């Protein structure tokens, strides 16, 4: 199978999952559709020589984020999510704007010189890890601090106050 066919398959997963996310009425289904889309994206990563990112994508999104979302859904009342209109009043405009934006970006991309480039290449995980811990060490540490702060913040916000259920 040529990479292009693989690309189309992965892209179909990604886009199909995405449509499912925004189309379904059931929130849990939406979360699962998101998982499908994310896996599609992971496939794309693989095709673009980003093995490490593909791995992170599967582990972090598939294993962590979706689970957290499902936990959150369980903590709120489920029946509210699966019934009634899930779109707000401006959804037609939103659809138009989205479509317009898509056309705009696509045309812009198609008119650019990027179409001629077919020469794909990747750095390999080794080089990525090296530079991440040398050249990008400080941003990396900052990101870890950010995660810590977000963690604490999430706990503080979500924790029950005095006398709350």
């Amino acid at each position, binding site marked *: 199978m040529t990479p292009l066919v693989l690309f189309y398959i992965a892209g179909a997963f990604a886009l199909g999952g995405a449509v499912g996310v925004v189309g379904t009425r059931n929130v849990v289904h939406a979360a699962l559709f998101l998982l499908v889309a994310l896996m599609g994206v992971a496939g794309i990563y693989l095709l673009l020589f980003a093995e490490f990112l593909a791995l992170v994508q599967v582990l972090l999104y598939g294993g962590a984020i979706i689970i957290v979302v499902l936990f959150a859904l369980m903590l709120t009342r489920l029946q509210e999510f699966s019934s009634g209109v899930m779109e*707000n009043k401006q959804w037609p405009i939103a659809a138009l*704007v989205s479509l317009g934006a898509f056309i705009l970006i696509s045309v812009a991309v198609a008119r650019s010189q990027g179409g001629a480039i077919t020469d794909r290449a990747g750095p390999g995980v080794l080089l990525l890890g090296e530079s991440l811990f040398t050249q990008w060490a400080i941003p990396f540490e900052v990101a870890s601090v950010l995660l810590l702060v977000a963690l604490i913040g999430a706990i503080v916000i979500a924790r029950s106050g005095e006398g709350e259920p």
Partner: protein
Amino acid sequence: MELAWLAPALNFAAFGVVSLFGKYLPGKGSFLSILAIFGGFILFGVVLADYLGQKEDTLSFSRTWVELGVARITWGMIIDPLSVIMLGIVSFVALLVQVYSLGYMAGQERFGWYFAAHSLFVAAMLTLVLADNLILLYIAWELVGLGSYLLIGFWYERPSAAEAAKKAFVTTRIGDVGLLIGILMLFKATGTFEMAGVFAAVEAGHVAPGALTWATILIFAGAMGKSAQFPLHVWLPDAMEGPTPVSALIHAATMVAAGVFLVARAFPLFEAAPDARMVVAVIGLITAGMGATMALVMTDLKRVLAYSTVSHLGFMMLALGAGSVPAAIFHLLAHAFSKALLFLGAGSVMHAMHDETDIRKMGGLRKKMPITALTFTIGALSLAGIPPLSGFFSKDEMLLAVFDGLSPAFLVLALVIVLFSALYMARLLFTVFYGASSPEAEHAHESPSVMTLPLIILAAGAAVVGFLALEVGGYEGFGNFITSGHHGFEVNLLLTVAAVVLALVGFGLGYAIYVRKALSTQALMGQFGWVHKLLVNKYYMDHAYQWAIDRIVLVFASFIGAFDRIVVNDMGVNGTAETVKRSGFRIRYLESGMVYNYALAMALGAAAVALFWWLVIPRIG
């Protein structure tokens, strides 16, 4: 001769000193004013003697006052027959009037201020007659107006006096607008304010005829204002609210003559613009006719004299329009003496009658105050044109000028006016001084000598100045003097006889009506009721002006005022603020609080920026 500038300067100085320090001086400083004007009179003598000895046509000298770019404004004097004559008239009458005022104004509040204002007026008037350029003339012209304003409004506590002062200033100011515009038009055309330069340019034909005609008519507008010509004559009768000596000086002899003087001074312009001269003649005739007819019916002593003045000024303008400067100036001279005399006489009567001015309450005063009566009679006869008094000579010259210079219709009407002027003078004279003594006149008494002395001097003048017209021996006559020998007075016997006969008829008619009661005034009034009503109401011109001021000027002004407050301010300015406020109230509803609305706006904005960057920037960059 160069000393002539001292005459106005002395009086300006007197004004300054008396107005500032008058209350610390003995006699409130009045003596300073009188000294100043006496100095002016002496200077007149000196200048006259010099002039006659020198035998030069004119002499002028000037000092620069303001110089900016091409415009040079100077203080300058011109000494020619016209200015010498005017210098004499002004200083002489002013001197007598001030002396008279010592008696008349005795005990008045603001006695010193009266003399200060008098000095200011005289100084301005002397500057006016001596000015050698149009701007200086205009300056003096305005200051004369100021002096008049201050003096008419001397008794400013009286609302009528305050009103009259305002009316006089505003009305003359309307004429002055024309004068200034005319002067500036001439400056634009000739590039100079010097009268000699302007006249030379006009004579050389450097000024377009159309512009010249308009400029000349506008200059005449100034003269119309000051000389109380129709339709700007309305201020003069009201100006009688001022003290009577003021009326004698300003509103009989000097300021009102300024217009005549101006036309005479600027006569080269009028000669070059025949249309403008025709305007002068027509306006003069209308004014003379209106003044004479209104003088027939007024019952206020001073107003009769005022309308008589209007009429005579109109006559002078008529003569100027006919092209005769000497006749007009000669009548100006004769009229100045006679009318100042009449006003001072009227003042003497009012002094005796406790400021009563209604002639119907007077009568038989001849016995109570003989000097006043005699001098008044001389003045009245002179103005009625009875020979051999001065008015006879001057009127004769004017009629001759009309005969020579204008169509016969003017002459016929002028003769009718001569008849009228004799009639109203007779009416005044007989009603006040002759006939039965009225009860109000019982306690009248002759005025003090400080007042009667000027009367006698003026009466003498009024009686004899007419003879100046005659050519006797080496003296070549007034006409030749004023025109430097170009235009002597002539005599047309037929015209003279006609004028005298008409004057006598008028006087006789007056005698018949008011002394012999051959004709009842009541019957006349009954017969010509509407005419009488028209005349008593001054041709309804005051009404018309009042209506115009109330309904047009003030309404326009309050319209603009309201427009400014309501449209410009409340709608424009506050409206802008209100619009911002209201639109803020409306626009805030765009802030729905719905987060996806904001997100949509963001998306649209981002798309707009992208489109702009992609489509617009490449084209304009």
